[in-house]
């Protein structure tokens, strides 16, 4: 054991070395630290194929990368007329600007989808994509009937819509395709772009960044706003956002904002508390060093062990490091007058070491959870706790001033200790508390666990309403169900999709579902395209049939040359495949298809989007007899099962951690009876928090579990120190002082969090505050009675 460093010079050197070491660590961290913000690394690892699909859909899927934009007139705009024209111009201008930025935006839709605007070289493909040829050859009878109908069209109000198409497409295949591809419900078109009935121009923007990456989403949103502001006339209009990406930005900003102001208030409170408790600024400043060491060491190890550190790891990690604050507090409270700090620490060290080891074991449970973010959290907190503990023991103790006030001499503390000692400690307390817990859990309302991921990412109600409103206007599909088709190749998926189409049509006709879009709607398999191609007549034959069909009709004889050319071209086209890159992939169609076909682990999945489900059971029959190659995926059920599986793993890890904890404590105290006095109050208090929260109708989420573990760590300290029977009343008073300071500081920090409106912060704040209170009370009430005071000591107090 080292001796206390002698002389102010040596102490100053130690302090400087320590500060320099911290500065060096800080520099390393600032050079290496790469913070990621993708929320998915904090989500459970998916295990089933459905869960993996879900994670892709939530985080990276086309749906989650969609931003919904609405442009409306600022101020009191009168609907209709001029303002619609201006809004449409803004919509077109914004779409143009964003389409030029393919680095950030992979797709921009505003309704101005015009078949005529397609690459003209793609138009002959209509004969391969449209189902007409399946039932109808391009012969004289069909052409004659079609041409007669076109004449009727030309004398009808639709004439102006069709006139331009006619020479190239007398059978209107393009319109048939457009009709097939029009969503069951699409927004109104005004001035050529989408509008809501409330006169807002609508745009859909797909970002290249994942929806759950708030920083990248922020960049995308800033880019849109910037492009919008640069448009002429944008000053008198308002651009509004919605969609998962926007929400993640808003939630992130709100959480940060609340955490910031709560953190500021509680920091001030904490400093005041420490000054009141120890009346020494140098003690206060010095005791901050172990915490700083803990944080820096934790981050430094993270930067070595992981390529990226998650922002939430850091936020939660600093919260959990709150336990480490106890180490310097314990040392400060246990100082005796005249005794140097090294000696005080030495006496405390076995107990502190037990506390550090137990906390580390509890946090190991996070490591076992298998979630990347939680693993980081475990590494950070364990390294941090060890750094805080050991630096308190071997560094801080040498720096603390020699002359201190012994808190044991404070009159109020003596009174408080007497009060605590006089409290009755009946043996039946654990039984009564346990019974109360069981009773409360039994009568608690509602489901026990919160399985809804969304409940933890709360959004203001008006934002959700706005999103629903825009989604409805856009006819965006139901986000809950997906029909999943699986096959070894993408052609297999398309063939499966084609087989399914008649059954799907029947379901739509029975009103089991409003609409179900299959991938083959956008692209038939190569085999089907070839089959249609074979049915196209050669130029001479078609020319002959057409001439006969034209007999007696007023069409100019050479009018349909473009039609003959297109059919000729179509005969020799290479069928389109989902893998055809370049031109097709760039079209709105190709992008739509890309969202519906994904390759995974050597096989392909087709995703059918479902709108307006009325009869889930009927939809599920689609998967019958398919041997698993067709199934209805309930994203809500998948996400709930994911959360449940996640929780099961954490609970299992906690169970193992508890066993280890019992062994550690028993070994450290070398007595089962003493271990009982430490572990029983801690366990009961933990379950009491759970029971009280359940009784209040709170559904338990993962964040509650994390908070319970933190509170458990704190409670363990209280119980350990109260259990320590030194037989020295002065030391017992110091223990009470230390514990009170610890409890108050924890209540201050977490009680403030309990006021937050963000459910995650509130869950943590409320749970830890309740936990600290229960742990404190129970560890006092269940601690063994202190030995009677020695006479000298009572004299000392009377001085």
């Amino acid at each position, binding site marked *: 054991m080292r001796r206390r460093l002698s002389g102010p010079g040596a102490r100053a050197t130690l302090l400087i070395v320590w500060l320099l070491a911290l500065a060096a660590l800080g520099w390393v961290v600032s050079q290496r630290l790469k913070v990621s913000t993708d929320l998915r690394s904090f989500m459970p690892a998916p295990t089933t194929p459905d869960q993996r699909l879900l994670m892709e859909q939530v985080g990276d899927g086309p749906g989650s990368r969609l931003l919904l934009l609405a442009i409306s007139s600022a101020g009191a705009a009168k609907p209709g007329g001029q303002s619609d024209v201006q809004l449409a111009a803004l919509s077109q201008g914004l779409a143009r600007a964003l389409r030029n930025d393919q680095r950030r935006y992979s797709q921009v839709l505003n309704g101005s989808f015009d078949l005529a605007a397609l690459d003209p070289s793609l138009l002959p493909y209509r004969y391969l994509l449209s189902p007409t040829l399946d039932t109808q050859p391009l012969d004289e009878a069909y052409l004659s009937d079609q041409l007669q109908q076109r004449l009727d069209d030309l004398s*009808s109000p639709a*004439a102006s819509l069709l006139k331009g198409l006619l020479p190239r497409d007398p059978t209107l295949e393009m319109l048939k395709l457009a009709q097939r591809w029009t969503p069951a419900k699409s927004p109104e078109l005004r001035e050529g772009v989408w509008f809501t009935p409330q006169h807002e121009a609508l745009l859909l923007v797909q970002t290249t960044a994942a929806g759950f990456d708030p920083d990248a989403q922020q960049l995308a949103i800033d880019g849109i706003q910037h492009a919008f502001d640069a448009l002429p006339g944008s000053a008198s209009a308002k651009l509004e956002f919605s969609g998962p990406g926007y929400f993640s930005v808003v939630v992130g900003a709100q959480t940060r904002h609340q955490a910031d102001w709560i953190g500021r208030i509680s920091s001030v409170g904490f400093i005041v508390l420490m000054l009141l408790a120890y009346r020494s600024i140098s003690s206060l400043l010095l005791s901050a060093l172990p915490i700083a060491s803990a944080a820096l060491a934790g981050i430094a190890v993270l930067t070595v062990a992981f390529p990226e550190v998650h922002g939430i790891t850091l936020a939660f990690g600093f919260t959990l490091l709150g336990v480490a604050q106890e180490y310097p507090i314990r040392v400060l409270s246990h100082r005796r007058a005249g005794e140097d700090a090294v000696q005080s620490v030495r006496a405390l060290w076995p107990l502190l070491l037990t506390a550090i080891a137990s906390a580390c074991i509890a946090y190991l449970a996070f490591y076992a959870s298998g979630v990347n973010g939680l693993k980081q959290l475990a590494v950070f907190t364990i390294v941090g706790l060890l750094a805080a503990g050991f630096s308190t023991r071997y560094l801080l103790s040498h720096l603390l001033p020699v002359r201190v006030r012994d808190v044991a001499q404070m009159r109020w503390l003596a009174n408080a200790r007497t009060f605590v000692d006089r409290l009755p400690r009946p043996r039946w307390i654990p039984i009564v508390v346990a019974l109360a817990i069981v009773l409360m859990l039994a009568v608690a309302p509602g489901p026990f666990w919160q399985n809804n991921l969304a409940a933890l990412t709360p959004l203001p109600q008006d934002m959700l309403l706005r999103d629903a409103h825009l989604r409805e206007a856009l006819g965006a599909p139901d986000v809950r169900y997906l029909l999943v088709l699986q096959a070894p190749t993408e052609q297999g998926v398309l063939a499966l999709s084609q087989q399914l189409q008649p059954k799907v049509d029947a379901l739509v006709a029975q009103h089991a579902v409003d609409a179900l879009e299959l991938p083959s709607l956008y692209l038939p398999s190569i085999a089907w395209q070839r089959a249609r191609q074979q049915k196209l007549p050669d130029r001479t034959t078609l020319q002959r049939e057409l001439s006969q069909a034209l007999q007696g009709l007023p069409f100019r004889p050479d009018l349909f040359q473009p039609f003959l050319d297109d059919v000729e071209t179509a005969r020799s086209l290479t069928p389109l495949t989902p893998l055809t890159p370049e031109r097709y992939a760039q079209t709105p169609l190709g992008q739509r298809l890309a969202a519906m076909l994904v390759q995974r682990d050597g096989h392909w999945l087709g995703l059918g989007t479902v709108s307006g489900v009325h009869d889930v059971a009927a939809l599920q029959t689609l998967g019958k007899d398919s041997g698993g190659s067709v199934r209805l995926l309930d994203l809500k059920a998948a996400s709930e099962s994911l959360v449940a599986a996640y929780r099961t793993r954490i609970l299992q890890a906690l169970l193992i951690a508890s066993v280890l904890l019992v062994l550690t404590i028993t070994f450290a105290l070398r007595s089962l009876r003493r271990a009982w006095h430490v572990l029983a109050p801690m366990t009961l208090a933990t379950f009491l928090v759970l029971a009280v929260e359940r009784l209040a109708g709170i559904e338990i989420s993962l964040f509650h579990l994390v908070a319970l573990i933190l509170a458990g760590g704190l409670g363990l300290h209280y119980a350990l120190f109260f259990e320590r029977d030194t037989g020295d009343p002065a030391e017992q008073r110091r223990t009470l002082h230390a514990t009170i300071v610890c409890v108050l500081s924890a209540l201050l920090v977490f009680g403030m969090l309990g006021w937050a409106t963000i459910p995650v912060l509130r869950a943590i704040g409320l749970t830890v505050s309740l936990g600290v209170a229960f742990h404190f009370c129970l560890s006092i009430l269940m601690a063994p009675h202190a030995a009677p005071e020695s006479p000298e000591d009572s004299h000392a107090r009377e001085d």
Partner: protein
Amino acid sequence: MLLLGMTLPLWANASASEAAPAAATSSSASSLIAALGQPAPARTAFAEARFMRMLDRPLVVSGELAWLGGDQLQRRVDHPNQETATIADGEVTQQRAGKSPRRFSLTRAPQLQVLLDSFVALLSGDAGRLQQAFEIRYTGVASGRWTLSLTPRDATVAKSIASITIDGDGKQSRCMRMQEADGDLAIDLLGPLAAKMPAQPTRDALQALCQSAD
């Protein structure tokens, strides 16, 4: 075409008791339009010939036009094939014998929307609303015959419709000619004149018919 065809005959139904306007001023055009306001519903016969670049000979159809009040218009074709087109609630519905109805939103064809708005204004005698959409030129001669020439102010509408010309006599409109920007022309004979559609109409013959003094 549809909308113009529907609205103008209603003028023809109006009584022609007043003296014909004589001065070629826009104020007299306004007073004419104001005097033409109609109570709904109102019906009239029509015969239409369309001269199109893609056709060797004109398309001729005939039937009945009706204003059902508000923004609801109906165009019934009896010859050569039966078809009824209705505009109501922002939607155009085409119904042919033996076929399921075809619908498209009026918003898919913005120029139709503008025409509808304007001509409902015309039917209600709202010259101001009509003048917002069109530049109106009015020519009258002493015998009581007149010609209204409408040029769309909206650039988008003007891209498809170059001008609309209406010939009338007293308070009766006889003819409407819609000149499309691509050179196609539609001529509607209205009211009693509808029965006089020649079997093989030509532009000149119809023009002469519209301006003849019978």
